[in-house]
């Protein structure tokens, strides 16, 4: 008896463990997610009630008196509860579902809103912002949206099928090679949430996450200006050495740091990498130790990713590089 009690106590813990709020579809902070949330509860409660009713009928059919059983097996009951009731419920659900689909997935956003292009690559997210003034700037692994405005995400990919899923914001939408899919999202509350690639795209698929940051509408323009600015110049000696190493070791071949000679497009843009909430597509914390670990050992963190391991630096050089990158706020 004691072991079953312990086992059953463990179960709720397992369930709760999967419920961290930042990636939970049950804590919507976006318009699309809110509609999915209401649909979810309608169907869950409705389904639950119908399930309870069916269970009840089953119990009556097995243990009930002959009167109840006679009523249950009447022809009217079969047609009424077996044909008309489901037909009515399903029709109602169809109507509600169509209404939601029309609203959430395909609403077009006003022309003033920023266009964000997200390209899934193996295994990170290339994010490009284009604002009303026509300015275009590139970032990686983080999507910043203004609260209350509808933003169109143009989803593409350059290699295999990925899927963009920010559970707190909206539903999933695939990124298919050769095709651009549009997803409209509207954040309703400011805050940080987490998203995930939702279509198997290779070995490191599980390590391909991203962060969504919703800014209050008046702060968004300010953030965009900050992001469009070139990289912060290094000020300490360590950071200067780090920048020198960064440029001399050929990091600019793949990574761009606007404002320096580094203009590579093969890998993530690092212009403001220091201010991101995470590294490596939300697999590592954003701190100096993680930078060092990634530079030296990224093939063990994310096997077969596009960056070769750089074991060519001394400890002091790695320190300098990490300080420089961390300082690119």
């Amino acid at each position, binding site marked *: 008896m004691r072991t079953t009690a312990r086992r059953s106590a463990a179960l709720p813990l397992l369930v709760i463990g999967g419920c961290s709020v930042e990636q939970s579809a049950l804590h919507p902070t976006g318009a699309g997610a809110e509609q999915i949330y209401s649909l979810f509860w309608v169907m869950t409660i409705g389904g639950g009630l119908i399930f309870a009713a069916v269970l009840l009928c089953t119990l009556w059919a097995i243990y009930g008196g002959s009167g109840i059983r006679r009523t249950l097996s009447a022809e009217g009951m079969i047609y009424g509860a077996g044909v008309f009731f489901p037909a009515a419920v399903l029709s109602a659900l169809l109507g509600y579902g169509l209404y939601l689909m029309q609203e959430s997935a395909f609403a077009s956003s006003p022309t003033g809103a920023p266009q964000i292009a997200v390209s899934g690559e193996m295994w990170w997210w290339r994010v490009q912002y284009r604002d009303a003034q026509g300015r275009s700037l590139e970032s990686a692994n983080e999507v910043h949206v203004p609260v209350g405005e509808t933003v169109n995400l143009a989803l593409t990919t350059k290699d295999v099928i990925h899927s963009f899923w920010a559970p707190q914001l909206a539903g999933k939408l695939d990124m298919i090679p050769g095709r651009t899919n549009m997803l409209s999202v509207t954040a309703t509350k400011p805050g940080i949430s987490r998203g995930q690639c939702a279509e198997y795209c290779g070995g490191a698929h599980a390590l391909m996450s991203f962060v969504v940051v919703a800014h209050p509408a008046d702060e968004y323009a300010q953030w965009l200006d900050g992001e469009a600015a070139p990289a912060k110049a290094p000020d300490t000696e360590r950071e200067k050495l780090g920048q020198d*190493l960064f440029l*001399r070791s*050929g990091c600019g*071949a793949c990574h761009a740091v606007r404002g320096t000679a580094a203009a590579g497009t093969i890998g993530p843009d690092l212009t403001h990498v220091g201010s991101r909430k995470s590294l490596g597509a939300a697999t590592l914390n954003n701190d100096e130790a993680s930078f060092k670990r990634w530079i030296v050992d990224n093939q063990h963190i994310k096997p077969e990713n596009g960056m070769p*391991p750089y074991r*060519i630096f001394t400890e002091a050089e790695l320190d300098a590089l990490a300080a420089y990158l961390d300082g690119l706020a």
Partner: protein
Amino acid sequence: MRIRDILKVDFDQLGNEIVVVILVLIGGITIFVWAGYYNVAASEKHLGITNWILATVRDQSIAARSSEIEVPDLKDRDRIRLGAQHYVAGCAFCHGIPGEPISPIAQRMLPAPPDLANPVNEYDAADHFIIIRSGLKYTGMPAWPGVGRDDEVWSVVAFVEWLQDTGGADRRDVIDDAGPEQRTGGGYTNPEAGEAYALSNCVRCHGDADTAPVSRLVPALSSQSPDYLRRSLQEYRNGRRQSGFMQPVSANLTDGEINQLVDYYSGLAPVETTSPEMPEAASIARGRAIAAAGIPKQEVAPCSSCHAGAASLQYGIIDGLGQRYLAGQLDLWRKGHRTGSDFGIIMARSAANMTDEQIRDVSAYYASLTRDLSRFARSSPAGATE
């Protein structure tokens, strides 16, 4: 009529008889192995039948493995001349060289190494490739030291084929061209000569102040970055970089000798080759585009980010290196080789996705450049590893 009637065999007894025979066989083999009666001396020839069995098994094994081999152009002078230099130092001791007898020591090996200086024509090029690359069990023929370096093996095969075809008649053309005496130097037979020996081993293939490298497959070392040269020799010495040509000559170098060689070669001015390569202008232009901008669609980084301007000299200076050499190295990376060193593995990702034509174009571009010696001044002291 049943079998037992025909053979007049009692099947009940047969089981016992079989056991007896097996025991006798096991006992006999044990006695043979332990008693030492069999003479393994190399001075005593094999029995005729043993010879026949060994030779047949050997030839059939080689034939089975050589049938799938694709033979490249073996009349290629670059291959023959490069193979000649390795042959002279590494193979001639056992297999002879035209005009010189096989060493008496090698003559007393069993099986005797065939005298390749006199046409034998028992094997074809593919067979030679298998033998030279994999070696032969039960003989003194070693396998090729450089793992994955089939390109080097083909150079030696090309020379062997040349020997077989011409009997070494034009040896001056291939082995002793208008170069210094060191080209036919004693190689490994004179370890006491110290610095002069070490340098002579390099000059044979890489040339010196007045002579260009022996073949376009060999890189010119003159005015190469000293850090890169030093690291390369160290990597050949400790086996992180595989090469059947370079590993044997680097294996016994001391750190002092390495420094001396590095100083010598990095201080040389570049030498004109006698047969400069002439790639097409269109190829060079395409290569220039790749070097400047890379090929983003194929995840190929621009070469100039690491191989030009103020980039670290640890990555080596590739301007002015021969097209054939550069293309060969890129091909090695594409095949997954040259990844044993921490620097080498960085190139693997970029080279992996290049097509043959792109490799040729990039190599043509860099071969067409003259070396930018100002890079030595511009690069700040590079961080030392190893």
